[in-house]
């Protein structure tokens, strides 16, 4: 046996590449969250009021909650296909620290399901009349905030991966946990519209992101080990 042991970094890159390749082959994973985000946000004007000034007031919250729900629904794909075809077990028995493999899967998943939502958000912001000065704030808070949602949501997905009816339970676990991110994101948009500087809010969200990058994959890894025997 002279198989060369791959380094942690190589394992990380291979896992990430594999997930991106699968997503590229099954383009639904990219399009669906994106469509969901578009449809949900376009329901708010119908449900609340078509009046532009009223829509402008709630636009930040509408965009954030739609992004949060899109992220939640997309999360289910994160480990399920791998669980069903057995490749998740291969990840668990690999000699590399599960933390990095889970992190790679999370990043890959965010790139295909979270990033498109962030990129399309200015267009929807325009449709629901978000005040002009808030566009960049919305974009940057979503850019930092949606990876946090993915990382934290990943814990709930990992805990429920083997269950038959997991949709509602996943929502019950993940939605309350996303409150701090939701608060930071919408507050940043509203307060910068009142003239507060953006940097402080981005710093707080950046701290949340770093915290969840450090801790959440550890919990996800443990949760996967519990769910998959």
């Amino acid at each position, binding site marked *: 046996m002279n198989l060369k042991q791959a380094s942690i970094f190589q394992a990380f890159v291979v896992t990430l590449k594999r997930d991106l390749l699968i997503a590229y082959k099954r383009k639904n994973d990219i399009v669906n969250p994106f469509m969901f985000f578009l449809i949900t946000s376009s329901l708010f004007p119908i449900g609340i009021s078509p009046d532009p000034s009223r829509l402008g007031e709630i636009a930040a919250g509408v965009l954030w909650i739609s992004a949060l729900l899109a992220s939640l629904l997309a999360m289910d794909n994160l480990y399920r296909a791998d669980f069903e075809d057995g490749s998740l077990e291969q990840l668990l028995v690999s000699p590399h620290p599960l933390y990095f493999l889970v992190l790679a899967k999370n990043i890959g998943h965010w790139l295909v399901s979270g990033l498109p939502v962030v990129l399309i958000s200015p267009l929807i912001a325009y449709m629901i009349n978000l005040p002009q000065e808030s566009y960049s704030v919305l974009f940057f808070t979503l850019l930092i905030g949606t990876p946090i949602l993915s990382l934290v949501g990943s*814990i709930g997905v990992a*805990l*429920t991966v083997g*269950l038959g*009816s*997991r949709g*509602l*339970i996943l929502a*019950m*676990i993940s*939605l*309350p*946990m996303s*409150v*701090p991110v939701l*608060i*930071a994101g919408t*507050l940043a948009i*509203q*307060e910068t519209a009142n003239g507060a500087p953006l940097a402080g809010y981005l710093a707080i969200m950046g701290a949340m992101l770093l915290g969840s990058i450090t801790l959440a994959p550890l*919990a996800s890894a*443990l*949760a996967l080990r*519990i*769910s998959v*025997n």
Partner: protein
Amino acid sequence: MWLWFAKLGSPKWFYDVSDRWLPWLAGAMALFMIVGVIWALLFLPPDYQQGLTTRILVIHVAVAGTSLAFFPLMAVAGTITLVWKMKLADMVAKNAAALGAWFSFVTLATGSIWGSVMWGTWWEWTDARLVSMLFQFFLLLSVVALRSAIEDTDKAAKACALLSIVGCINVVIIKYSVEWWNVLHQPASPLSMSSDNANGPEFWMATGVMIIAVYLFFIVSLILTTRNEILQREKRSQWVQDIVRAA
């Protein structure tokens, strides 16, 4: 020291010891509960500002204080389950989640009743304590839901242990972020949130009695439900069958 620790983890040991303690704890609970409730609801003098509604607060404060103990308790029990795989810790944690959700609900309900009189509203988003209690309630319910969704007892124990630890950290983060949100988001609230500080010493004595009563109630219910859980999970073991036959 380790022998003591191992003994503590044995369901049979817990069952025997709790059998001896239960009458004392239940008696003390009944005493404090009767004194506290009668004092609070019938004899506490009306507050010069809040009138008789302050009597609701005695119970509300006691239940609210106790409901904060659940997540730390579950997180500690969860850590013991994950690290030492002690079965007893999970038997305690299983019932703590549902009990905690119930305590949180009673806190919200009594607070709403008091608020409907004093604040003129049943619900107030500007009060950080209401909002964070609501999310603690939701998170406790999610632990209950996860438990009931997983059939395998051992797997459910570990999954709920992990969720309890994550949830405990989250409750703290949610609490601070909601406070931060309230400070920045809303203009200063017209409602005085520290109004309960205006109460006299008698209010606090009654509250003290009530807090002890509710804590004892919490401990007694936890012991009772845990004993029930022990009997169910250990139903194949000899000592449980002996008990059942003797009964």
